[in-house]
């Protein structure tokens, strides 16, 4: 199974998905698919050089490259280029200047070294008329032609130039006339749609400007003739207080963290992925010929995965190999995701093995780190801004983050810390101890206003940011490990909490005695009551949604099914479909037939319950619904007989009262009964009451058979403990006498518990009152 990730949403409508083994994904509600978040940084510096051109660029320059995505989001800057000194490269003395009156003139200067097209500036002439900027035409070793204008083909009036004789004294200086950028990295990541080369202005190395912007993404050399004054968008590097504004604050989100939450204007990320899926094969070539694996060659640097799904993002992480002769840590140099092999930096030194357990995790230095994005820039993460928490051996592992009010709570298995900050968590953030309770994982807490409800391995508790209040003292057996219904923690990665504000209920989906997450410990924080729910299939994810105008919990289950909580009277049926109830005509191990029904295909995925008759109590999932037949996922343990009653989408529930003491009656006959007030249902459904005397685990049997008409809505069968209630009785009230005629000295029951068990049909069961006559008033 892949690592269970977390989604987090930012104020701009983007959703980010962190899972720890690959790049963080982003989706904005419009994209056709999820994309990698952030913009990759160029890895290499550009090289800049002075070349001939049409510009007047003089100064000392540096350059950076950066990438942009289609939204204009920028990457970090590349490494800085070489230092470039523009201008003053060549100079000389003008020995003579002749034929000044022509469009061109000829300058004599020994071994001048100029080339055609170069731009020079002549200064120092005794007459200002000879001074100025000129372009070089044809050249010989000791002479060069100059055009008396910068752009030879423009209109000009030579009369503006002087006809005076050159009187000497002038010198020429070549002007750096263009900058050539080479070795410009070509991006390979599809997110990049633009490259920008940034250059400073002469005399300022803190602010850079866009010199070249390229969307073609193929060239590796560019030439710029932009003078300083012509440079584009300003890109400051550092603020006055030294804050990085553009150098390295736009790093991609950390791909090794699997928990992320949005808190005010930042995303915080925590909890490193510890990847252990499958196994690894390792070879120590120093051991000599390997008799057990004769076909393999010397590959001490190669680790082979079996049943793994390694990703390229794991390069650079630590690999712990649990070799038979001891565990050793290595650093992963590279990952071949296709072949599922790792190359490690140092040769494997343990015992050769075809399969040993292992784990891959971020370096130890990242174990207790909290990374966070720049404010308002959820895809820009300055990696040097990090909060490192203090190691507390009693805390257990860091499991999640919970924003509540101005504080961000850092959840460990057995402790909770809080982070408070004003503007910059790395500068003014304060981490402090909050409680000695923790949380199972990032998905096992629910926040409702100023109170949070969390589940850790000791139970469920309420937390208001300062104090905790235990809520599970009544159901502690689930958490002690001694109860038959104890929680199995082995699969706790998939445990999660689901909140339904409309009913004020929270469900923690857990595994009980099974590896599948199909039980819910349900809590109503209005009544402080607990109950247990069992689902026919695992519910492995949930979220809170607005559906039809109401906030509702929605759940994710197997085979891509999405379910909504607290909806309708039956379970798992698609929108607008009516549940079927009827009598079984015949049944095979995996097929149930009803010749009087026509089943619709949409029943596939829903549960079917056998609610009466042989095979009663079995619940199976329908995998095919066609004609008169329902095919189920698992064979029946007890084959239903013809006449057994089934309910598609049947929602089976059970309630047991607390122990009720009978009132002492002396020698008189004890007048006792149990009555039920309920809301009549429009269609037939199953509702059964049972009586348990004292500590008996089996229901007390009834000694007579009676029809519903004879029993005023309650039918019984001799030898059975079931009192079957007619839920369609318009009176909404049934009563069953359980008088006792025992004498005071007879050994007899002193207390009783009543159980109600129902399976809904078209309506919900609403039980208003259970009235026990003859019970002790206390």
């Amino acid at each position, binding site marked *: 199974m892949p690592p269970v990730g977390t989604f987090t*949403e930012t104020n701009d409508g983007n959703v980010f998905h962190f899972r720890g083994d690959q790049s963080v994904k982003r989706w904005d509600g419009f994209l056709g698919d999820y994309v990698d978040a952030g913009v990759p940084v160029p890895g290499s510096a550009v090289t800049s050089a002075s070349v001939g051109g049409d510009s007047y660029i003089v100064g000392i320059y540096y350059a950076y490259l950066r990438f942009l995505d289609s939204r204009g989001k920028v990457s970090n800057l590349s490494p800085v280029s070489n230092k470039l000194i523009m201008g003053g490269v060549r100079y000389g003395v003008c020995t003579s200047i002749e034929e000044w009156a022509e469009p061109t003139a000829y300058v004599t200067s020994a071994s001048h070294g100029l080339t055609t097209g170069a731009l020079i500036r002549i200064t120092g002439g005794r007459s200002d008329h000879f001074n100025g900027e000129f372009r070089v035409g044809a050249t010989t070793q000791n002479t060069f032609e100059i055009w008396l204008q910068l752009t030879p083909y423009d209109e000009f009036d030579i009369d503006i130039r002087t006809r005076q004789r050159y009187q000497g004294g002038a010198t020429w200086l070549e002007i750096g006339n263009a900058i050539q950028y080479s070795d410009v990295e070509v991006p390979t990541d599809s997110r990049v749609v633009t490259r920008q080369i940034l250059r400073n202005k002469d005399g300022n190395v803190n602010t850079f400007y866009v010199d070249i912007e390229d969307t073609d993404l193929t060239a590796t050399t560019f030439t710029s003739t932009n003078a300083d004054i012509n440079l584009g968008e300003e890109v400051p590097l550092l603020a006055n207080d030294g804050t990085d504004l553009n150098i390295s604050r736009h790093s991609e989100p950390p791909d090794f963290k699997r928990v992320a939450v949005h808190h005010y204007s930042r995303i915080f990320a925590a909890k490193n992925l510890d990847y252990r899926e499958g196994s690894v094969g390792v070879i120590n070539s120093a051991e000599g010929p390997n008799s057990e694996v004769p076909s393999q060659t010397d590959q001490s640097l190669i680790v082979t995965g079996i049943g793994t799904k390694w990703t390229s993002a794991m390069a650079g992480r630590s690999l712990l190999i649990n070799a038979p002769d001891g565990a050793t840590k290595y650093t992963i140099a590279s990952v071949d995701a296709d072949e599922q092999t790792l190359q490690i930096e140092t040769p494997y030194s343990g015992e050769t093995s075809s399969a040993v357990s292992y784990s891959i995790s971020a370096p130890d230095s990242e174990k207790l780190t909290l990374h966070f994005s720049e404010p308002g820039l959820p895809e820009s993460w300055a990696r040097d801004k990090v909060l490192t928490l203090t190691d507390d051996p009693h805390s257990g592992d860091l499991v999640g983050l919970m924003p509540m009010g101005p504080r961000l709570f850092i959840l460990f298995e057995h402790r909770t810390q809080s982070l408070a900050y004003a503007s910059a968590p790395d500068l003014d953030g304060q981490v402090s101890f909050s409680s000695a309770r923790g949380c199972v994982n990032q998905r096992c807490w629910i926040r409702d206003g100023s109170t949070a409800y969390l589940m850790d391995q000791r139970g469920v508790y309420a937390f208001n940011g300062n104090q905790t209040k235990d809520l599970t003292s009544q159901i502690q057996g689930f958490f002690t490990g001694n109860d038959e219904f104890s929680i199995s923690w082995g699969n706790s990665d998939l445990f999660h909490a689901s909140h339904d504000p409309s009913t004020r209920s929270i469900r923690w989906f857990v595994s009980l005695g099974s*590896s599948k997450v199909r039980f819910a410990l349900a809590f109503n924080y209005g009544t402080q009551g607990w109950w247990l729910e069992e689902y026919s299939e695992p519910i492995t994810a949930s979220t809170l949604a607005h559906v039809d105008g109401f906030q509702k919990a929605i759940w994710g289950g197997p085979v891509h099914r999405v379910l909504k909580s607290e909806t309708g009277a039956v379970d798992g049926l698609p929108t607008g479909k009516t549940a079927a109830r009827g009598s079984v005509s015949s049944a095979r191990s995996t097929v149930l037939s009803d010749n009087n029904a026509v089943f619709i295909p949409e029943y596939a995925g829903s549960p079917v319950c056998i609610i009466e008759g042989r095979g009663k109590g079995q619940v199976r999932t329908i*995998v095919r619904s066609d004609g008169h037949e329902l095919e189920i996922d698992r064979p029946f343990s007890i084959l239903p007989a013809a006449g057994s009653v089934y309910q598609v989408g049947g929602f089976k529930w059970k309630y047991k009262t607390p122990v009720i003491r009978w009132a002492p009656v002396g020698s008189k006959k004890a007048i006792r009964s149990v009555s039920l007030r309920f809301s009549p249902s429009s269609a037939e459904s199953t509702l059964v009451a049972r009586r348990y005397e004292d500590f008996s685990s089996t229901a007390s049997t009834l000694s007579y058979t009676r029809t519903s008409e004879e029993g005023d809505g309650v039918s019984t069968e001799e030898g059975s403990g079931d009192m079957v209630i007619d839920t369609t009785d318009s009176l909404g009230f049934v009563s069953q006498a359980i008088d006792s005629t025992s004498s005071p000295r007879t050994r007899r029951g002193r207390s009783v518990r009543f159980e109600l068990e129902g399976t809904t049909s078209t309506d919900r069961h609403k039980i208003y009152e259970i009235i026990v006559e003859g019970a002790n008033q206390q």
Partner: protein
Amino acid sequence: MYLGRYRQGEWVVLRGQKITPVSGSATYPYPQYDAVDPNRLLGAKTHDTTQFTGGTNPVVQVYDKEFNKVAEKEMWPEFPVKYPAIFKASLFLGSDIPEGICTSITTYTNYNRIGGVINSQGMVCSFEVLPGGHASGSYIAMHYLDLPHAKFVLGQHDSDSLDFRKNPKV
């Protein structure tokens, strides 16, 4: 051995045990799984056949009802310390595994110290891929996104995929 009935989008755990035909006095514990829920470990029993813990890992090949090979996986020890000769591989029933009866054949070869083959063995199991599944698998993380133009349910699945579904309604 019949491994049960699954829908597309579910995981099948394929298990194999390496043994040698040489009878020995050693007994090894091996795990017992629930018949209804094959992922539920009930406890351990001992085996009176010598198990072999060296050599190459078993390889399981899966064939569809037409006997076309649809998957091949190397297995790894499920409990390397406690039950070193019990191997497993997890197979996700994606769109490449068709409905119907599938057959898995697990094979392995044991070598002696100088590289000679001691024995080569195989084990055949079957399981059934039922209709009514979905190759995306189960949700393992969800998020609800409410935007002005639509509402979305975003999901991560155990098939290692992400998706989004528009305008949920009941």
